[in-house]
C-alpha cells in the first residue's frame, strides 16, 4: 500500500524556496536515528535531495580530479562513473566530455578542479523509487570559463543505486543519476523521468 503525502516546501537551511508538489513514500516503519545522512527519510524533501546531490557532486569532483591528475580515463574512473550513473549512455556522455577536455589539454579546468554545486530549484517528484527535480548547477569551482551558476536549466533524476553497478561501494549516497543535464538546443524540457 502506498501513501501519498503533500508536503510544504522545505527551506530549513535558508536556501531559495523550492516547490514541492507531492511526495509518495512507502509505508515502512519510520526511520530511527541514524548517522547515515543519506538514509531515505519518510518524506523526501529538498533539503534531503540537496544533501544527496552534494554527495554526488563530491564523487563527480573526485572523478574529475583523478582524470585531471592522471591525464587518463582509467578503468577506475569508469567504475566510479558507473557507480553514480544508472545507465551506460550517461557514463558514455561523461567519458566523451573528458575526452574532449583532454583534446584541449584540460585548459578550461581549474588546478585542481573543485566540486560542482547542484541545488534543487523545483522538486517535481520525490519518491523512494525515483526523484525528479529541476536544479541549478554551478561549475565555477571546476571550470575557469564559468562564473556563478550556469544560466541553463538543469534537471536530475535519481533512482536507488543498483549495487551491481557499484561493487566497490564507491557511492555512499545510495542514489544514482538516471538523468543529469539539460535538453539539447531546440528540444523541450525533459519529461518526468520518474514516469517512464
Amino acid at each position, binding site marked *: 500500500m502506498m501513501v501519498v503525502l503533500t508536503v510544504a516546501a522545505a527551506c530549513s537551511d535558508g536556501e531559495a524556496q523550492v516547490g514541492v508538489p507531492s511526495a509518495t513514500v512507502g509505508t515502512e516503519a519510520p526511520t530511527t536515528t541514524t548517522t547515515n545522512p543519506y538514509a531515505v527519510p519518510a518524506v523526501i524533501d529538498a533539503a534531503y535531495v540537496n544533501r544527496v546531490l552534494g554527495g554526488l557532486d563530491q564523487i563527480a569532483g573526485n572523478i574529475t580530479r583523478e582524470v585531471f591528475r592522471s591525464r587518463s580515463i582509467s578503468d577506475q574512473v569508469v567504475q566510479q562513473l558507473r557507480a553514480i550513473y544508472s545507465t551506460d549512455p550517461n557514463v558514455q556522455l561523461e567519458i566523451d566530455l573528458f575526452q574532449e577536455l583532454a583534446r584541449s589539454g584540460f585548459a578550461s579546468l581549474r588546478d585542481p578542479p573543485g566540486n560542482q554545486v547542484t541545488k534543487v530549484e523545483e522538486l517535481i517528484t520525490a519518491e523512494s523509487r525515483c526523484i525528479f527535480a529541476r536544479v541549478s548547477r554551478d561549475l565555477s569551482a571546476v571550470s575557469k570559463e564559468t562564473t556563478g551558476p550556469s544560466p541553463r536549466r538543469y534537471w536530475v533524476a535519481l533512482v536507488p543505486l543498483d549495487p551491481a*553497478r557499484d561493487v566497490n561501494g564507491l557511492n555512499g549516497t545510495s542514489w544514482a543519476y538516471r538523468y543529469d543535464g539539460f535538453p539539447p538546443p531546440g528540444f523541450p524540457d525533459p519529461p518526468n523521468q520518474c514516469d517512464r
Partner: protein
Amino acid sequence: MAPPAEEPLIACREQGSNVVCVIDGQTYINGQLVDAASGAEPGARYVPYERIVVQADGSRCTTTGWREVTDPTVPDGIYQIPDADFTNVLAGLPPPCPEPAGQAVSPRAIAVRHWEEIPLPKPNPRIAPGWGITGKLAYLETNGTTTYTHTSPTPLGELRIVARGRYVVDWGDGEESGPHSSEGGPWPEGDITHDYLWAGTYDVVVTERWTATWQIGATGGVLHELETTGRIEDFVVREIQAVVVAR
C-alpha cells in the same frame, strides 16, 4: 520476463565551453555529430577519431568514431589535436572493441592485427669504442630507425601504417633517460649520452616505444603503443687513474 528496454537518453552536459549531447544514441560535441557512420549526412565531412567507450560489462574498449568536421583546415587523416595530454589519454588506450557477431571485420580490426604482427625495427645499440670511462660521457648510437612505414593489401583496400619511435635508455646504473627522438651518435655529435660515476659492468637496455596511425582508404585511426628493445650486455666502464712515472 525481460526488463523493459531503456528509453534512449536525450541530454546534454557542459564543462566550460564544451557541451556534449546525446540524442537517441548519437553524440554531438559542441554541435558536431560524432560516432556517426562515415558519410551519414550527405554533404557533411567526417574524419575518424579514437573514442573510448564503455561496454555493457563496464569494461572499456576503443572504437573508431566518425566526427563531423566543419573546419576546412582539419586534415582528412585522424582528427587529433597534437597535445601531450591527449596523447597521454591515448597511451592508456584500452583494447579495440569486439566486432559484433555476424558483422564483417572492421578496417580498424584489420589494422590492429597487422600492427601486432609486423616485425617492427629493433634498436641495435652500441657505445663506441665498446667500453666507457668514468667521468667521461658515453655516447650511445641506437642503430635503429625512428620512422617505419608498412603497407599491405587487405580486402578493404591498401593498409598503410606510419609508425614513429622514441627511445628510452636504461643505462644499467639506476639512471634512465628519454624519450629521445634522435638516433644518438658517436662522439662528439651524439646527443644520447650518459656519465657513469662508477667503474663496473652494466647492462644497457634501449627500449623503442612505437606509436602509429593507420589508414585504409578514407578510414584511419591511432594504434596502441608497442615496444622493441635492444641491449648492450656487460658494458664495461673503467676508471682511469693518472700515474706519475717520472719527474
